């Protein structure tokens, strides 16, 4: 009895939740103030990165400490493309292509690295990124350490609610697209293959799974998402500098992944909300040491919710369904 009821309840709950979230996302520009919309846009960018990292790490088992580097690649690709006179939409597609190729290519040496070696290699990438951006020869494009201004894309004439709301909807668009892509990959035979590879690559190969191909493709998909999000974040702040993409950003992504819940797409959403809103509250608790409070919360999450917020929420709804 209870066994048949619980999945129903949780699927109804899921539908209600999706409707609420969807409705809110559409209505947000009319409901909230401009600063809150700005925050929401950041949340969407985080969600996009975390979906990609979940595919890569949560489902695929490849750990990356360097997704901030691919976010930087996305942001600076955008600047270069725009400077070259490429219009907004083709530039957005261009970012996707560039970051996919970069991630896919990085995926090949990554194949030779297992576990913490891969983590170290991606870590190195994240460390090198700000230095790399500061290279003198690139200054005409990047603005060097002074950074560079980025214009918000102009809303088309038929859109009457301003450039900020327009860009917000664009971010809703690529976040949804990332989500759909992730769901599609995971439900098909590719998804089973990716998860099997994480558990045991030798056995996966014996099942006919092309381990190298899936690993590199997933790497590319996840860096595409990171690149789009990186561009999104810089466009909405209308400014980018090497300091936007330090190692800290990569670590923040990883924290979002772990706290949200590894191996769950809902976890990407919860992790993004955590990253955006929890630091504010921690600042209220202690103005002196928000980072310490943040760190303590992180530790508590890891100890008491090893499957992250999404895992905790899932078992809570399961319990609810049984009652």
């Amino acid at each position, binding site marked *: 009895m209870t066994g048949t009821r619980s999945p129903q309840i949780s699927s109804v709950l899921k539908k209600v939740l999706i409707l609420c979230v969807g409705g809110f996302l559409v209505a947000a520009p009319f409901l909230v103030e401009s600063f809150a919309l700005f925050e929401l846009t950041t949340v969407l960018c985080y969600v996009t990165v975390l979906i990609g990292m979940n595919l890569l790490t949560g489902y695929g088992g490849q750990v990356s400490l360097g997704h901030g580097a691919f976010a930087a690649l996305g942001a600076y690709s955008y600047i270069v493309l725009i400077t070259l006179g490429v219009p907004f939409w083709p530039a957005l597609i261009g970012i996707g292509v560039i970051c996919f190729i970069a991630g896919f290519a990085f995926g090949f040496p990554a194949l030779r690295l297992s576990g913490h070696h891969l983590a170290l290699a991606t870590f190195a990438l994240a460390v090198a990124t700000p230095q790399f951006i500061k290279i003198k020869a690139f200054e005409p494009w990047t603005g060097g350490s002074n950074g560079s201004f980025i214009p918000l894309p102009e809303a088309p004439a038929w859109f009457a609610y301003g450039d900020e709301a327009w860009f917000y909807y664009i971010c809703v668009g690529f976040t949804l697209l990332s989500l759909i*892509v992730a769901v*599609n*990959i995971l*439900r*098909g*035979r*590719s*998804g*089973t*293959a990716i*998860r*099997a590879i*994480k*558990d*045991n690559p*030798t*056995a*996966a*190969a*014996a*099942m*006919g*799974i*092309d*381990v190298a*191909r*899936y690993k590199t*493709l997933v790497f590319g*998909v996840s860096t595409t998402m990171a690149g789009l999000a990186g561009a999104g974040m810089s466009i909405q702040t209308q400014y980018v500098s090497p300091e936007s993409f330090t190692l800290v950003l990569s670590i923040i992504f990883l924290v979002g992944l772990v706290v949200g819940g590894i*191996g769950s797409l809902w976890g990407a959403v919860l992790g993004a909300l955590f990253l955006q809103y929890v630091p504010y509250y921690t600042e209220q608790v202690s103005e002196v040491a928000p980072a310490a409070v943040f760190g303590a919360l992180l530790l508590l999450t890891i100890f008491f919710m090893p499957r992250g917020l999404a895992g905790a929420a899932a078992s809570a709804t399961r319990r609810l369904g049984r009652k």
Partner: protein
Amino acid sequence: MSSGEGGIADKVNNAALLRISNLEVSFGGIVAVDNLSFEMAPGEVCGLIGANGAGKTTIFNCISRIYTPSGGSITFDGNNILDLKARDMAGIGIGRTFQNLVLFPSLSVRENIEAGAHSVGKSGFFADLLRLPIASATRRDIQERAQEMIELLGLSPIAEEPIGSLTFATRKRVELARALASDPKLLLLDEPAGGLSHGEVDELMERVREVRDRFSLAMLIVEHHLNFVMRISDRVVAVNFGRKIADGKPSEVSVNPAVLEAYLGTAA
């Protein structure tokens, strides 16, 4: 068929599904497989016996291309296996289980078996990503195939369970189902009865017979449980220190003096 020409020997040879010739494998100084040759016909059940460390698993790992032999050749169904990679084996029709049970722990029973059916599908990564019609068709084929295997091996009641919650014997059945899901022409079973109780071994025997009759596939079975091998096999190959010491009907091999000395002697 009725030809009395000189090509008969060739025909017999061509009829072999698997042909291993002069296989050599060494690890550092250890010769694990030493100039070993044997053949299997389609649909044949062949037992592979030998003491611990005789090289049986190494032979399996060569056939499934996890190892690359230092010499010799392996052909299967017209393919030179040594030209191919481990991931190609399922596609050409070789399925296997592992001596020490290698399932995917974060996948459910059903998903493990679906992973086994990977090579049945055709949709690529981007077709899946875009949910093209071929992705959905492939998904259906794989799900059907997995469901068939689940029913065949009596796994329906536990199909949605994670692997971690299952008994050892059930896990072995899941692994068998996963290997069968790729629709192999040759199934390699590495100690299918290992670690099972008497009752479970009898049940396994029934299942293996059922599988064989239903799919008429060839099986190469490594097993220390001699009663099991001798009863299920059409033919038995015995190896010792990587060398073949006997090859024939179970009744012949079980009384072969070299086998008795090298294997049965020590096992008794």
